[in-house]
C-alpha cells in the first residue's frame, strides 16, 4: 500500500509540456509541468499492477494537492475493503486514517517510508534540471513520433537513478518515454506516457505504463482522470475531512 502511495507521489514529480530545442530549456519546461504552486490540484488515479502468476492488484484513489503549502490528501476508493482509507500530509507529518476503526495513526515522513522501498526524496518535489546534467541530445523517432532523446546523468547521489534517458516529443514538450538506469548502467525501468490531457495550459499525462525491465512481466498502468486545478476547500486538508468522507 505504501508503495503505491509513494508511486503516486513520485509520479506527480515527473510530468511535462512546452516546446523548445535547447536541452536545458526542455528540462526546465518538463520541471514546470509538475509545478502547481498557487493552485490546488486533484485527480482520480487508478493503478493496476501486474505480476506473472498473481492476480492484478488494483488501487484507485482520489488525490488532492496544495503544493505551496506542502499539503496532500488522498482517499482510497478501491479495493472495496480499503475504501475510505485516507492519507493526509502536512509538511513532514503524515496521518493515516482507517475508517473501519475510525482511528488515525500519526507518523513523520521518515517513519512512514521506513518499510517501503521509497526514499525520502521521492516525496519531495525535485527538479530534473537541478539534479541532472544533459550528456547528449539526439534526434530520433519513437514509433512514428519525432523526439528529442535526452541522455541525463545525475549530478548528485540524491536521485534514485544515476542515468535517465528522456524521449521528448519535438513539436510540443511532452515526455513520451523515460528510461531509468542503475548506477551500473543497466536499464531498470521504462515508463511510457502515451496519453495526455490539456489542463490549465499544461499537458498532463493521463495514462502511464511502467515496465519493470528487471522482472519480465511486471508492469503497472496508471490512469489519471478527472484532473482539475480548481480551488479545493481548505477542509480537504484536515483530518476532519478524512473522517467526514466516511460518514
Amino acid at each position, binding site marked *: 500500500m505504501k508503495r503505491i502511495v509513494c508511486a503516486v507521489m513520485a509520479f506527480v514529480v515527473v510530468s511535462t509540456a512546452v516546446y523548445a530545442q535547447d536541452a536545458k530549456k526542455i528540462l526546465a519546461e518538463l520541471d514546470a509541468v509538475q509545478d502547481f504552486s498557487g493552485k490546488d490540484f486533484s485527480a482520480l488515479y487508478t493503478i493496476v499492477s501486474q505480476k506473472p502468476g498473481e492476480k492484478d492488484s488494483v488501487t484507485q484513489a482520489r488525490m488532492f494537492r496544495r503544493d505551496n503549502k506542502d499539503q496532500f490528501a488522498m482517499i482510497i476508493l478501491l479495493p472495496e475493503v480499503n475504501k475510505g482509507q485516507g492519507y493526509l500530509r502536512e509538511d513532514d507529518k503524515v496521518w493515516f486514517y482507517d475508517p473501519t476503526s475510525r482511528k488515525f495513526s500519526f507518523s513523520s515522513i521518515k517513519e512512514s517510508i521506513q518499510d517501503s522501498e521509497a526514499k525520502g526524496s521521492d516525496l519531495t518535489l525535485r527538479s530534473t534540471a537541478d539534479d541532472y546534467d544533459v550528456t547528449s541530445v539526439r534526434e530520433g523517432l519513437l514509433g512514428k513520433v519525432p523526439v528529442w532523446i535526452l541522455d541525463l546523468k545525475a549530478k548528485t547521489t540524491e536521485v534514485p537513478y544515476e542515468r535517465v534517458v528522456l524521449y521528448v516529443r519535438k513539436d510540443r514538450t511532452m515526455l513520451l518515454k523515460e528510461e531509468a538506469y542503475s548506477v551500473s548502467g*543497466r536499464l*531498470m525501468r521504462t515508463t511510457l506516457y502515451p496519453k495526455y490531457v490539456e489542463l490549465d495550459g499544461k499537458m498532463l499525462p493521463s495514462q502511464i505504463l511502467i515496465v519493470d525491465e528487471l522482472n519480465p512481466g511486471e508492469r503497472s498502468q496508471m490512469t489519471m482522470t478527472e484532473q482539475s486545478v480548481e480551488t479545493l476547500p481548505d477542509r480537504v486538508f484536515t483530518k476532519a475531512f478524512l473522517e467526514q468522507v466516511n460518514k
Partner: protein
Amino acid sequence: MKTTANIAFRNLSRQKKRTFLLGGAIAFGVMIVTLINGFAGAFSANVAENFSHLLAGHIFISGSEKLEGNDELSVIRDDAALQEAVKASGIDVRYMTRRSEFSGTLIFEGKKLRTNVAGVELDKELYLRQRLVLKEGSWDNMSQSQAIILSEKTAARLGVLVGDRILVQTQTVYGQNNVGELTVAGISYDSGILGQMVSYASLAYCNELIGLAPGEYQSMGILTASLKDADKAADILYAKLAESVSMFERQAKDENGAVTPFQRMVREQTKEEWAGVRYRLATINEMLSQVQQIVVALDTAAAVILVVLFLIIMVGIANTFSMVMFERIREIGTMRAMGVQRGGVRAMFLFEALFLAIGGAVAGIVLALIIMGAISLINFGMDSPAFIILKNGHLSFFLPPAKALLNIAIIAALSLVAVARPASNAARLDPAVALRTQK
C-alpha cells in the same frame, strides 16, 4: 638419586605387563581428559565461530559519515586510525575482516528473493572459507569478481545452479538504484537460520554495487582470541579508539533478539548532533546475547567433568600403587635389609609413579589425538540440529599444546600426590616384617 631413578625405571620395564596395565589406565584417563579438553576447546570455539563467521568477528567497528541533509552513510573510508588503535590496544586479534553488506533482491528467471549480501575479502577470510562448506561449486570460482555464494535454501528458492547468472537489485549507500549481475560460484550448506540469511560476494564488487570506492568498506570485524574475552577486549579497544577518532557512545545491550550487526547499526540513531565521521563499536554478545551464555554453560560443564575425572583418576592411581607396594613388600624388605634408606624407597616409588604417569599421559594424549582424528571424520551433516557445536558438520577438537603439557603436568602431580601415601607406607616398612610377610 640417579640410581633410585634407574631402579624405578627398570622396575617398570621389568614388569612389562603390569606397567602396561597401569600405564594403560593412566593413559585412558588422560585420553578422556584430553578428549574432553580438546572437545571443549573446539566446542566453545565452534559455537562462537559458527556465529562469528557469519557475523565476521567478535568486535565490530563501523563508520558513519554525516552527509548533507543529516543523512548518515555507513562507510569506513580509511581505517589507518582504527588499525593503529587496534594495535595500540594490545588485544589479541586472530584476524580482522573488512566487510560491506547490503540488502537486495536477487532475481533469476522471474523468481525474486530478498536477502542480505555480505561483501567479503575472500583471500583473507580464512575462517569463512573453513566454516562455509560448499555443497556445490568451489571457492576457486569466487576469484571472479562478480561471483556470489548462496545458501542451499536461497538457491533452491531461486532455482539457480552453480554457474547461473543472477541479477541483484539494490540501492547504493546514497540510495540510488543499482543492479548488479552475479554468477553463482557456490551453493553452501545451510547452517541454521543465520546461515540462510546471508549470501557472500566479493568486497570489491559489493562496494561497486553500493557505491563505495575500492578499499573502502562498512564494517571491521575483529576476531579476538576468545569469545569470552571479547567484551573486555571491546572495552579496551573502545577506550583506545576514543583517543584518536570520534566514537559513538556504546549502546546498552539490545534485547530485541538476533539481528545482524548491520541491521542493528542501521537501527541505531544518535540523539546528539554531530558532523564528520564517527565510529561505532559493538560486540557479538550485544548482537546475540545467547552465544556467550551457551559458551559459558558448556565451559562450566566441561570444567566440572574435568575435576571429577581427575579425582577419579587420582583414586585409581593411588589404589593401584597400594597394590604395587603390596606386591613388592619382600623386595622392599630386601632393599631395606641391604641398607637402602627410607627416603630411597619412597623416592623409588615416586619415580616409578612419575615415569608411569608421564608415559601414560603421553600415550593418552597420542591416543586421544588418534581418536579425535577418527571422530573428526564422521560427518553429522550440516543440517544436524547440533550444527551449532559442529564444524561444518563434523565434531572438531582443538587441543592447544600448552593445555596438553598442562595435562601431563597435572597428571604427574596428581600421581605423586596419590602415590605419596603408599610410598611412605612402603618406606615405613620394617625390613624384617617385610621379609616375613606372606602374600
